[in-house]
């Protein structure tokens, strides 16, 4: 298949840096290469207002390692910041209102820093509805500086939960209610949609431990109820630990499946374990 465009994804999380080269063919997107490099404990801690990179040198080394493995050349990279760095809200925008300005106004009161320091962008999810996100500029710049120091040419910067959600929303489950569980190393995002419309969006810090599956299932059901009463929701899971959750929830009688799968081989883990792959389609 002829390649029209190749782009690179670079995803950060608490445990490591992952990168992928994705090409757009005439029929479908292809994952051409994948690489990841672990980070020492404490080197990166996602936070919406404090410095994230406690060990910039280690992060830069991991970025260089991934870059050497992928050899992207001059291809621009989309940096994907981990869950937990942004304030993300689902909101309705009044008609005739400039969406970005309205989102900035709405988010300003809930930010733990000055609104002037916020980088705000939107993800349209239907007529008059957007998922708006604000990230502190100083936090963004930390990641940008690290990537640049490692030789990456940045094309844009996105949030891993939004990239994953974009990918998931392209595929309908056919169920009356669906909850997408987007896992990060530090935080988890739950989004509920019904009748083809995103109805609820929540972010929670993860509470890793033996009871996390049950806690997360309860959170998923609470999120589904925000979308409206109905039958048991269908759960789709992506991100680190996704396979384990799917297995546990299926065993518990819940309707759960990986958020996506990859045709063919070449990944060290199941594709659903990598939330950054949402950036392939997002």
């Amino acid at each position: 298949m002829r390649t029209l465009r190749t782009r690179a994804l670079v995803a950060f999380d608490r445990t490591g840096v992952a990168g992928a080269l994705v090409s757009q063919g005439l029929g479908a997107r292809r994952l051409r290469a994948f690489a990841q490099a672990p980070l020492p404990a404490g080197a990166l801690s996602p936070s919406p207002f404090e410095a994230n990179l406690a060990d910039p040198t280690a992060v830069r080394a991991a970025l260089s390692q991934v870059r050497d493995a992928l050899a992207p050349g001059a291809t621009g990279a989309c940096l994907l910041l981990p869950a937990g760095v942004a304030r993300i809200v689902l909101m309705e925008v009044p008609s005739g209102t400039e969406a970005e300005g309205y989102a900035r106004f709405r988010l300003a009161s809930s930010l733990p820093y000055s609104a002037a320091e916020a980088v705000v962008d939107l993800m349209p999810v239907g007529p008059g509805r957007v998922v708006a996100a604000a990230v502190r500029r100083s936090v963004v710049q930390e990641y940008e500086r690290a990537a640049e120091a490692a030789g990456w040419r940045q094309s844009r910067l996105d949030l891993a939960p939004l990239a994953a959600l974009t990918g998931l929303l392209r595929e309908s489950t056919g169920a009356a209610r669906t909850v997408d569980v987007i896992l990060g190393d530090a935080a988890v995002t739950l989004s509920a949609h019904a009748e083809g419309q995103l109805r609820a969006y929540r972010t929670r810090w993860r509470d890793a431990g033996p009871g996390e599956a049950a806690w997360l299932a309860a959170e998923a059901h609470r999120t589904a109820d925000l979308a409206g009463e109905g039958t048991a929701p269908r759960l789709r899971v992506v991100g680190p630990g996704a396979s384990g959750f799917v297995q546990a929830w299926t065993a518990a009688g819940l309707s759960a499946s990986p958020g996506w799968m990859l045709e063919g081989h070449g990944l060290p883990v199941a594709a659903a374990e990598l939330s950054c792959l949402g950036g392939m389609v997002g």
Partner: protein
Amino acid sequence: MRDFSSRPRARRLEPREWAWLAVGALAVLLSAGTAWDAWRDNRAAVVRVATVRAERDAAGARLRALESQVRRDSMGNQAWLTLEAPPPRVVADLAELLPPEVRLEQLSLKYGTRLEVEMTVSARDAAAYDLFLERLGASPRFGEVSPGEENRAGEVKAQVRAAYREEDAR
């Protein structure tokens, strides 16, 4: 495309602004199309003007050639007439037509494409003048007789124009 980069971003256009942009682009395209049509029409007009000018110049040249030819013919004709119808002969022909009571007071000969004769005659009475006109009109030498001003109070004094017939003269 969503972008949370810290670098300055171009402002994203609203749907209404996109619509205006599309309208503007359409207007530019229409203007370009109109300008192209106008340019093409202008080119065609320039070509037409050049053709008309060339035709005019050619016609002018033909006209000048014809005028030159006519001038040459006229001068030739005049020369021929002068040769074939010298004044003494014309006077002689005219004298043959004059009744005794009519005398020729003034005679003017104009040699051109034809020989025009203009004369002033005096007659003792109107009957003599009328006889002269009758003879002049009946003469094969003269044609297109045109009596001019005349005074019939007693002695008649009148101007008469006629053309000397070159066909007959030849």
